[in-house]
């Protein structure tokens, strides 16, 4: 745990160094704190998100992700600190913020006895979009999320995935600058998750919409996020893109090579340890686990074969967010990785 605290300092300072040459952040949160009686839901959170970015807010349930999102939209008042979205203060100008920001709650509900189309029309009217334009936009959005065929069906007949897509269409109706998605992939089947994430990515890319999404499904989010922040017990532990997070966390040991070689002896291990880029070599269940800074598999295999050993297995393991997650939330031993993600 002590290590991770060190890493946090490193990462935050990195982010600060990067800041000056970037544009004005579209979401900037400073020292945000939210207390519920004695319980601190969000503690001194400082975060900034750039325009056009896809940012993943990751953390276990009850980490304060939803509370942070509610404060961004001005739906909950912070105990202290400031939130600025699109240059507007969320506490003082919540209406103006909500005009620019689309929000998809985690368990979205629709009026069951209204059709999907009518549900969207209602939202459009609440946004004061003139009737005819609203109809055009609703049609366009339903098409965009692939619900044109189901538009005239009642919302009660929609599946979970269709609801999420309808929710996304609703969020897009007001042509937002920022969309905030709270657990968008929750309860979807793998194909649904993939489609939804592709849709989100396409939106961000085509329309330049900034996306903030919260999740506890790490590797799902890993696919599309430009940056992620890991959020535990109301505090942002680390922030950055996935490779740099892994690098920072695992003592510059970005990947592990799992090598099956015969015979294994102490000289071989000692020799391997001398190789440039190798951080550690351990023997586990007759396989060698070699932690290294970069991919040295080709060089390694050459050395092994030259030294007369027989090489029968070589696999590159890269640390994914799951591993990072475990490290932070479950306080596992360093490099104990039970659920490493394999990369081909």
């Amino acid at each position, binding site marked *: 745990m002590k290590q991770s605290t060190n890493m946090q300092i490193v990462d935050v300072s990195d982010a600060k160094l990067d800041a000056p040459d970037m544009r004005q952040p579209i979401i900037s949160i400073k020292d945000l704190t939210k207390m519920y009686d004695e319980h601190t839901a969000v503690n001194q959170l400082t975060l900034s998100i750039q325009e056009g970015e896809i940012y993943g807010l990751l953390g276990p349930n009850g980490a304060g992700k939803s509370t942070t999102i509610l404060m961004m939209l001005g739906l909950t008042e912070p105990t202290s600190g400031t939130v600025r979205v699109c240059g507007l203060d969320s506490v003082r100008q919540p209406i103006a913020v909500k005009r620019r920001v689309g*929000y998809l709650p985690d368990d*979205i509900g629709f009026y069951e006895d209204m059709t999907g189309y009518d549900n969207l029309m209602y939202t459009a009217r*609440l946004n004061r979009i*003139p009737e*005819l334009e609203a109809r055009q936009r609703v049609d366009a959005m339903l098409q965009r999320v692939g619900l044109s065929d189901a538009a005239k069906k009642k919302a009660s007949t929609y599946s979970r995935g269709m609801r999420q897509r309808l929710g996304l269409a609703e969020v897009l109706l007001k042509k937002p600058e920022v969309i905030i998605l*709270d657990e968008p992939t929750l309860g979807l089947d793998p194909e649904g998750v993939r489609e939804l994430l592709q849709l989100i990515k396409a939106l961000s890319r085509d329309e330049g919409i900034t996306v903030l999404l919260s999740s506890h499904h790490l590797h799902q989010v890993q696919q599309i996020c430009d940056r992620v922040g890991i959020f535990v017990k109301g505090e942002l532990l680390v922030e950055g893109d996935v490779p740099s997070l892994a690098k920072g966390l695992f003592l510059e040991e970005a990947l592990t090579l799992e090598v099956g070689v015969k015979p294994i002896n102490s000289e071989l291990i000692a020799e391997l340890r001398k190789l440039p880029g190798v951080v550690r070599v351990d023997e586990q269940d007759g396989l060698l686990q070699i932690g290294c800074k970069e991919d040295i598999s080709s060089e390694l295999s050459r050395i092994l074969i030259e030294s007369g050993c027989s090489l029968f297995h070589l696999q590159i393991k890269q640390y994914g967010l799951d591993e990072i997650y475990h490290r932070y939330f479950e306080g596992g031993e360093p490099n104990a990785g039970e659920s490493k993600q394999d990369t081909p």
Partner: protein
Amino acid sequence: MQEKVSRILRKTGQVFSGGGRDAGSSVFAETTAYAASTASRKAPHPFWIIVRKEMSDIMLSWRYVILLALMLLTCGASLYTAITSIKTAVPTGEAVDSFLFLRLFTVSDGTIPSFMTFVSFLGPLLGIALGFDAVNSERNKGTLSRMMAQPIHRDYVINAKFVAGISVIGLLFFALGLLIMGLGLLTLGIPPSFEEFLRMIFFLMLSVVYIAFWLNLSIAFSVRFRQPATSALSCIALWIFFSVFYTMIIEMIAKGIAPVNPTHMDQLVNYQQTVQFLLRLSPGHLFNEATMTLLMPEIRTLSLFVPPEQTYGALPSPLSVGQSLLLVWPQLTGLIAAVLVCFMAAYMMFMRQEIRSR
């Protein structure tokens, strides 16, 4: 000129596409799109959008249909009994005869209660039915957080719920009241005087205020309790308490505090006033007092003891509308205050609550 044409076109477009958005109407919408773009009318205020939706939700709901059927049934029954018994129940006398039309609302032959009694009994049920799940069902369905994410003020939701409920109740009551008047006119053959008409309108307004109290109470409970069933049961419990048990309790208290050997007139007056005050804490009692005074012009006072110097020389004639209104002004004020207290409670609770998804 062009603007005018486009406006008319748009209006017809809306009428056409109002019912079902079929293919034909969308074609129509497209043809009017050009006309509309030349003169873009401002979209209606979101508050009225919510009110409209809430009203249509209420009117299309099963519970409203059931209550409407119940109200129509009681309305018919009470009208029937009023018409059949109006000849026997009404004592002959010039002063009373002149308010024959009002008897339609108050007269009963003892088997079926009068319309006035029905309203004081069923009105609360109507109010409760329209409000008990106003906020918590939206919360449970997850639509509240979605609505809150739109650029609207939070209080629009609760204000709109109240306005929609009260509009539906108002419409219903005025429709029923005017229906009774019309049917009475047909059967009795005597047109109501302007004063009678005014009294009936005030009675209907008073009923709406009384039901608004129950509506707001149930909205407050719907904010407070997460489960619609809990809030419905709490409202019904209060309704039964006030309509059945409250008078019993007050009677018990009255027996307890009754002066044993009243030696002075003041003791009796004080006692009666205390009992009356306790009774008037019930909104139902206030409503009954007010409706009786409004619908029976011969009621000259609501206090039980009138000093002889005040009655001396008073003519036994009915009061005018203005005087009757003056007499029930405290009751009316009390009811309106109760409505506002309930609304404020609901409003404050709602504004302080955090809107989370389910």
